[in-house]
C-alpha cells in the first residue's frame, strides 16, 4: 500500500492558500479539524472482497468545506461511514488513522466512539424522513440528541436548547413546533431538523451525505445557506458528499473526486472547473448538461461501467473507460502515483500518469 502523506497534505494546504484562508502551522495535525490517513474499508460477501475505500488520505481544516464527488458505488458513503465508525458487518475498516481533535478515533472502543460521535463529529443523511423517528416529537428527538452527551442537563434546559436549535435552523414558532411529529413538517423542514440534531452538540466536523438530493431546488438553496451559517458562526468543518458538481461549486472550497474507492483528484474548488486534472473528473464535468456551456449534439457520455470493486483491474482503475488511457499499456499496467500539479486555480493532487502533461496543455 502506498502512503500519500507528504504530497497529499501539502496539496491541501496549498489549495487553502488559493482561497486566502487562514492556514494552520504546517503539518500540525492538532490544528486540523480532521486528518485521515491510509483508510481502507472492505466488505466481505460470499467469498468476494469488495474494496470500497482504498488507502484514502486527506486533511480537513477548521471551517473547510470539502466536497467529495463520485457516482454511486464509488465508495463515498462507505468513506463517510468509515470515518464515523459506522461500518457494519460484513464490512470492516481494515486499516487507517482518523485523527479528530488530536486523537486517533479509529483506535477507540465502540463505547468511547459513542461519546465522540454526535458530539465532535456528526452526520446528516440524504433522506430526512428516514433520519427521524416518526412516533417521537421533533422536540423529544432533539432533546435526546443533547442528553446523550450531557446527561446531567435538566429537562427544561434541554428543551430550551432544542427550541434555540430549531430557531437556528429557521423554523418559525419553534417552541410550539417542538411538539409536532415529523410528518407535520415538510421535507425541507425535516432536513433542517436533521441538521439541528447533528449540530446539537456543536461538532467540529459535520459530514453531510447528499443532504439536498431529496429536496426541491429552492429548498436546496435554503439548506446550503443554513450550512453556510454553521461554518461561519460555529467554525464547523463540513464534508459534503454529492454527485452534483453544481452544488460543489456553490458550497465548497475544496473538492475530492472519488472513483473506485480512491480520491483520484483533490484540489481547491475552482481548479476542477477550470482545469480538471484527472480524465475522470473532466468526464464527470462534461457529461452533465451545463446551462452555461451547452454542447452541440450528444452529451459526451462516459463509456462503460465502473469497475467491479471485488476484482479491480491492474493499473489505473479508470483506464478501461478513459479516453486517454484506454489504449495505453502504461495505464493498464502501472498504478498511477499521486502527482502534484499547479494549474490556473492553484495546486491539485492527481492520480494520473498524464497529470503534468494535461495541466501544461491547459495553460497553453
Amino acid at each position, binding site marked *: 500500500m502506498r502512503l500519500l502523506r507528504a504530497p497529499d497534505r501539502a496539496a491541501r494546504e496549498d489549495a487553502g492558500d488559493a482561497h486566502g484562508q487562514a492556514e494552520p502551522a504546517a503539518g500540525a495535525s492538532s490544528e486540523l479539524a480532521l486528518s485521515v490517513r491510509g483508510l481502507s474499508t472492505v466488505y466481505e460477501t460470499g467469498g468476494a472482497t469488495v474494496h470500497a475505500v482504498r488507502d484514502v488520505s486527506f486533511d480537513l481544516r477548521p471551517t473547510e468545506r470539502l466536497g467529495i464527488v463520485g*457516482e*454511486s458505488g464509488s465508495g463515498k458513503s462507505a468513506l463517510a461511514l468509515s470515518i464515523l465508525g459506522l461500518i457494519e458487518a460484513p464490512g470492516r475498516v481494515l486499516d487507517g488513522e482518523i485523527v479528530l481533535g488530536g486523537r486517533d478515533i479509529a483506535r477507540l472502543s465502540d463505547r468511547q466512539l459513542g461519546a465522540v460521535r454526535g458530539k465532535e463529529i456528526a452526520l446528516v443523511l440524504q433522506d430526512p424522513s428516514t433520519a427521524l423517528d416518526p412516533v417521537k416529537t421533533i422536540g423529544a428527538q432533539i432533546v435526546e440528541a443533547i442528553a446523550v452527551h450531557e446527561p446531567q442537563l435538566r429537562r427544561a434546559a434541554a428543551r430550551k436548547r432544542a427550541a434555540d436549535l430549531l430557531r437556528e435552523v429557521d423554523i418559525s414558532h419553534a417552541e410550539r413546533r417542538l411538539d409536532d411529529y415529523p410528518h407535520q413538517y*415538510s*421535507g*425541507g*423542514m425535516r432536513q433542517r431538523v436533521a441538521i439541528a440534531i447533528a449540530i446539537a452538540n456543536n461538532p467540529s466536523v459535520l459530514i453531510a451525505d447528499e443532504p439536498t438530493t431529496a429536496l*426541491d*431546488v*429552492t*429548498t*436546496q*438553496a*435554503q439548506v*446550503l*445557506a443554513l450550512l453556510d451559517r454553521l461554518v461561519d458562526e460555529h467554525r464547523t468543518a463540513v464534508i459534503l458528499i454529492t*454527485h*452534483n*458538481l*453544481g*452544488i*460543489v*461549486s*456553490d*458550497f465548497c*472550497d475544496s473538492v475530492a473526486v472519488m472513483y473506485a474507492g480512491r480520491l483520484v483528484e483533490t484540489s481547491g*474548488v*475552482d481548479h476542477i*472547473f*477550470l*482545469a*480538471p*486534472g484527472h480524465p475522470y473528473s*473532466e*468526464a*464527470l*464535468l*462534461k*457529461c*452533465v*448538461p*451545463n*446551462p*452555461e*456551456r*451547452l*454542447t*452541440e*449534439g*450528444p*452529451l*459526451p*457520455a*462516459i463509456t462503460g*461501467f465502473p469497475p467491479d470493486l471485488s476484482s479491480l483491474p491492474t493499473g489505473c482503475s479508470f483506464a478501461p473507460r478513459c*479516453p486517454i488511457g484506454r489504449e495505453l499499456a502504461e495505464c493498464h499496467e502501472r498504478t498511477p502515483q499521486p502527482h502534484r500539479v499547479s494549474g*490556473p*486555480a492553484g495546486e491539485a493532487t492527481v492520480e494520473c500518469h498524464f497529470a503534468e502533461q*494535461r495541466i501544461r*496543455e*491547459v495553460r497553453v
Partner: protein
Amino acid sequence: MSAREERPGASAGVAATREPILQAESLSKSFQVRGGDRFGRKHPVKVLDDISLTVYRGESFGLVGESGCGKSTLARCLLRLLELSAGRVLFDGVDLTTLDRDELRALRRRMQFVFQDPFASLDPRMTAGAIVEEPLDIHGIGDERERMRAALEMLADVGLTAEQARRRPHAFSGGQRQRIGIARAFVLRPEVVILDEPISALDVSVQAQVLNLLSRLQEQLGLTYVFISHDLAVAEYFCDRVAVLYLGQVMEVADRATLFRSPLHPYSVSLLSAVPIPLAGGRARRASRPQPIGEVGSVVERPPGCPFEPRCPVGRGREICRTQRPAMSNPAEGHLVACHFPGEAPLSAPHKNGGPPADLAAPADAGE
C-alpha cells in the same frame, strides 16, 4: 452565446411543426383527500387547476416544477391514464375524454409512457425480450416470430444484445433497465412518448447515455416527447419548449431560449436562480443571488390569488396578487405568462448572460 439558439436541440432532426398533436383544454384534476375537518371527512383537492397547453408534433415539450406542482399527474391525465375532473384532452384532434375503453386502447398504441423508476416499472419475472414484446402482443401486432424479431431489433436499437434479451431485470444495471423500459415504450412506434423523469433515478454518467439514446430515437422515429423533469439544466438541454408549473397551475410557457434567458414569471426566475451551475466561482455567484422565500406550498391550501404570491419577491403582500388569480397573458408569439407583474423580477447574470466572466472562462475542453 449564439450557440444556444443555433444548437441542434433534441428534436433537430425532426423539425418541430406547428401542428398540434396533444392539447389540454381547461384541464382540472381533483383527488379526494381525507382530513380537513376533525371528523376526517373526505373533501376534494384540486391538484391540477385549469391547465391549457398545446404540444406540437415533432417537438420535445418540457414540464418543469418542484414537488407537488402536479407535473406527473398532468402527464397521466394527458394520456387519460387518470380520468380528468374537468376539461378535455385532444390527441391528434380526437377528444380522449369521449372515448370508450376499446377506442382508448386502440389509440394508446400511438402514445406511450416511460416511467421514472426502472426498478419498479419492469416485471421481475419476465425476460427483457418478453417485456419488450408484450405491448405488441397486447395490441395483436404480427405473429409470434415477427413480434420476437421486432422486440430484438428494438432492444438492439437501445444497445442490448439478443443474449441479454433472455435475462430478467435483476441482471441489469439501472441504466440498462431504463433502456428496456424505453424499448418497451418505443416498440409500438408511438407518435407521442411521455417521459416522466426518465433519468432521475440514474447515475450522472448513465444519464448522459440515456439522454443521447432518447435524442437519437426521436430523430430516427420522428417522435413527439413530453419530458417531465425537476432538473432545469436537463430540461434546458433537452426541450424545445417548456411549461413551468406551480401548485397545479401553469405559470409560464415559452421556447427554450426565452424561458431560460429571459423568463417573465417571478417563479421561473426563482427556480432558475436556484440551480447550482458546475462552473468556477459558485460561492460568489450564490452569494449574489436572492434567497428563495419560504417553501413550496401545498395544493391543499392553495392561495386564492396567485399560488406563488406568498413566496414571490414581486407580488408578496400585494392586494391583487393575494386575491386575483392572474389571467394568462401573451407577451410575445409563443410566450405565455400568468402574472400580474410579469418581468418585474428579471433573471440576473450569469444565469442570463451565459458563460463565466472572461478571466474564469478557461477552457474545460483544453484539458483533453
